[in-house]
């Protein structure tokens, strides 16, 4: 583009490894990231569902948020840092168990989603009063600035830009991880534990973005290549690019920020109202509470739904959704081909009256109205390990 100065792309510590594995690199959120390896998106996707896929997600933002008003290591200290973050998110963070984690959203004053994120309470007694936070790559600077400006001196935000993040996802993941980090295989979904590995401190969280059982592992930058190679040495583990990451999360019905969620959309509209904790529904006290509580009581004007096109043509982001009688009722926000489903799948927003499962829709693809219907999410069942 003329007149626009190209900003040099950032690289993760695994850049050299990606190249040596034959990755095709693309720009994503200001980083040079692998979109696929020589196997290609389709095989990488299926491999993850059948065995285990390794993803470099080091571009995501990691940080520690610590209370400055209480001595670390007490339940009071946890309650204080939890109350601080609860002023920005609608989740129940105070009641989070030690070592437990929550999916949550940062909210604007108007109740729109500024980003989605993971918030973890440490397992160790001595670390109570601290939270481990993981946010999206494209939003990390804005998210951390928001936390700093809104929470001020009450908390200290330490950005962990010396740590990388790997995800190992799929049915073989637990066995592979447990052999390297003994005990990790016993962790249940949405818990985090610390491990020592070759002199480095790793945080293994049983979570992910594929719908499969698996882990996200925070690793110091200077150990991440060795750790990634250790995982890749297992015959069940293959490197997976952002292309398959996207088709996997779409089949799992999970939102991609900037596409399925944005600063105008509320968590109720986004069909992620489970992020609003029971106590928070009673007490409010989060940004945009008046809109969000009203939408919970009365229903939102529009709703994110799963959409199954009837034919074989994929309907992608931006495609107009019409009612069966041709009225414009919304737009596709994520869509493509689901390799495990074996056909096109999509998610989008429709007016509330058209959000019931089974509702017939038309998708305007290249000027033609293609028949589709509202379906339950996810497209592929989640296989999380709940013990």
């Amino acid at each position, binding site marked *: 583009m003329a007149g626009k100065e190209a900003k040099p792309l950032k690289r993760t510590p695994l850049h050299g490894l990606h190249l040596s594995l034959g990755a095709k690199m693309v720009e994503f959120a200001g980083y040079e990231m692998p979109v696929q390896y020589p196997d290609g*998106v*389709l095989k990488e996707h299926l491999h993850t569902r059948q065995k285990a896929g390794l993803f470099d997600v080091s571009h995501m933002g990691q940080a520690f948020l610590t209370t400055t008003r209480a001595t670390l290591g007490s339940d009071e200290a946890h309650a204080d840092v939890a109350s601080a973050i609860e002023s920005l998110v609608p989740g129940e963070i105070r009641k989070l168990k030690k070592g437990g984690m929550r999916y949550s959203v940062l909210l604007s004053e108007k109740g729109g989603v500024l980003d989605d994120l993971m918030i973890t309470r440490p397992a160790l007694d001595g670390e109570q009063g601290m939270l481990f936070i993981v946010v999206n790559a494209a939003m990390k600077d804005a998210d951390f600035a928001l936390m700093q400006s809104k929470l001020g001196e009450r908390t200290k935000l330490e950005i962990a830009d010396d740590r990388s993040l790997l995800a190992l996802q799929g049915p073989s993941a637990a066995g592979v991880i447990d052999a390297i980090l003994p005990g990790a295989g016993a962790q249940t979904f949405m818990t985090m534990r610390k491990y020592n590995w070759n002199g480095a401190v790793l945080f293994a969280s049983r979570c992910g973005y594929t719908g499969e059982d698996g882990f996200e592992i925070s690793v110091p930058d200077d150990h991440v290549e060795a750790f990634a190679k250790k995982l890749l040495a297992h015959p069940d583990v293959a490197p997976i690019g952002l292309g398959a990451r996207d088709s996997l999360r779409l089949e799992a019905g999970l939102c991609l920020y900037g596409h399925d969620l944005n600063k105008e959309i509320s968590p109720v509209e986004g069909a992620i109202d489970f992020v609003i904790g029971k106590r928070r529904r009673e007490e409010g006290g989060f940004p945009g509470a008046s809109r969000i509580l009203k939408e919970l009581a009365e229903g939102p004007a529009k709703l994110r739904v799963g959409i199954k096109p009837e034919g074989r043509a994929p309907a992608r982001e931006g495609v107009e959704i019409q009612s069966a009688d041709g009225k414009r009722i919304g737009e596709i926000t994520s869509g493509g081909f689901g390799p495990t489903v074996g056909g096109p799948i999509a998610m989008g927003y429709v007016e509330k009256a058209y959000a019931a499962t089974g509702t017939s829709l038309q998708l305007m693809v290249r000027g033609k109205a293609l028949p589709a219907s509202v379906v339950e999410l996810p497209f592929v069942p989640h296989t999380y390990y709940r013990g």
Partner: protein
Amino acid sequence: MTVKYTKEHEWVRVEGGVAVIGITEHAAGALGDIVFVELPEAGKAFKQNGEMAVVESVKAASDVYAPVTGEVVEANGSIVDDPASVNADPEGAAWFVKMKLANPSELDAMMDKAAYDAFVETL
């Protein structure tokens, strides 16, 4: 038998007065796993460079342009039923359409195999 190529990565093989048209190995490789193909029906006429067909991979949709002006006489339904065959044999069995050439001289300006291979090297 002459095979000509375009910068949009289509190939044209002329057999009698009919042009067999498809996409190149390079194009199929760059698109990745093809999961959907939409072809025009027989009888449909196109101007050179008109949007003629659509191929979609897991990631994205791409247009295929008519490399020559003419009328479609046959579309290859087998690639609609088995889109992955375009990855397997793009310059053979997985041809897209056959067209009756309206203006055979359009072929003169197109690249031959050597010129196309050299062009791909520059990408």
